[in-house]
């Protein structure tokens, strides 16, 4: 029987298209328009051509922020992914404690970003915060407002605390989907714990882990609220990540042109990396992983 061709179903996606147009496409077009012009307010614009892109490409400030951003994303991925897998492997697989663990693990994910920032800002304070006070009492010189290393440790630990459970929950879902027959076969072959992980669990989790890596990368690459609330980008510019720098430029200095050029380059990098991850994920899916 020949399939009926009916393109009317496209109308069903129309509301989404309109929503995306207003929330993403039109603002993006406006950013492109701003990136080639200069303004002094009052909605008056002057043609600047590629000047802002040229300025941004040779701007040390942007490259430094990009370096810090890449370092931040790399560090949190290097910690959260293995830690999430480790937690998922050691979670009870069924029964009351399994549900209990799932609920406890979900809690940090439910807390809004600015609240997480505030919690850690207070937690790390030497005068009233439990963490800061304890470290100080132990004789460890910890002050995230003045020491670069302490500031970095604080924002990294905060992100790990906030998001490792997402990786763990995804990895746990991946683990739960492995049929028992695989483990039984491994047992018959007397496979070691490491080999069960390496040849059964890890390949079967690969799909969800790719999603976890993609989500965590994108989220960490555009992180703003948490580090901004804790350190405000300081001490100095030590924790000024890309989006913090961008907001400072666009809203603090009202340099809309350079900020628009900056954000377009930022967008292109995210688009490229997301496309790479998406392609890898689709290809893994086709291989049945």
């Amino acid at each position, binding site marked *: 029987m020949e399939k009926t061709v009916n393109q009317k179903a496209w109308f069903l996606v129309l509301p989404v298209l309109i929503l995306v147009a207003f929330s993403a496409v039109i603002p993006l*077009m406006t950013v*492109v328009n701003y990136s*080639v*012009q200069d303004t002094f307010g009052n*909605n008056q614009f002057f043609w600047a*051509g*590629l000047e802002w892109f*040229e300025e941004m490409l040779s701007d040390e400030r942007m490259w430094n922020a990009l370096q810090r951003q890449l370092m931040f994303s790399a560090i949190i991925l290097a910690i959260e992914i293995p830690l999430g897998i480790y937690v998922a492997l050691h979670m009870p697989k069924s029964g009351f404690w399994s549900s209990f663990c799932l609920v406890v693990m979900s809690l940090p994910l439910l807390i809004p970003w600015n609240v997480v920032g505030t919690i850690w800002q207070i937690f790390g304070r030497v005068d009233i915060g439990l963490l800061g006070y304890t470290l100080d009492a132990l004789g460890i010189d910890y002050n995230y407002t003045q020491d670069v290393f302490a500031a970095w440790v604080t924002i990294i630990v905060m992100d790990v605390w906030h998001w490792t459970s997402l990786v763990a929950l995804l990895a746990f879902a991946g683990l739960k989907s492995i049929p028992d027959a695989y483990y039984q076969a491994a047992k018959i072959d007397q496979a070691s714990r490491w080999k069960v992980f390496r040849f059964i669990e890890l390949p079967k989790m690969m799909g969800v882990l790719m999603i976890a890596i993609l989500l965590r990368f994108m989220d960490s690459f555009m992180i703003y609220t948490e580090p901004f609330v804790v350190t405000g980008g300081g001490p100095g510019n030590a924790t000024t990540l890309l989006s913090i720098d961008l907001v400072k430029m666009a809203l603090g200095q009202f340099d809309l042109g350079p900020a628009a050029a900056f954000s377009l380059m930022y967008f*292109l990098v995210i688009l490229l990396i997301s496309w790479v991850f998406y392609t890898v994920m*689709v290809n893994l899916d086709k291989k049945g992983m």
Partner: protein
Amino acid sequence: MDWMAWTWPTAIFFMVIALALILFTILAIKFPETPRVGVLRIETTRGDRLFITLLGSAFINLAWLGLVGPDTQPWALGVCAIYAAAVFRWV
């Protein structure tokens, strides 16, 4: 629309992208294709190759601007055309 600060060059830029999307949609309807595997060892359709071309062209233009300078920017479009041809032929 004043707040969007439109200029002719940016309007033309978006029109070209919109036209490319419309053209590729028509091509996909008129001449359906099966995805193929190219040098990247991934399955691509014409739409995927257009996306790779546009994204790559953006980076070529930025690299040209940063490394060579704005005076010879139109030459970057030449490089993009060669890149586009290569993508549609081999990717």
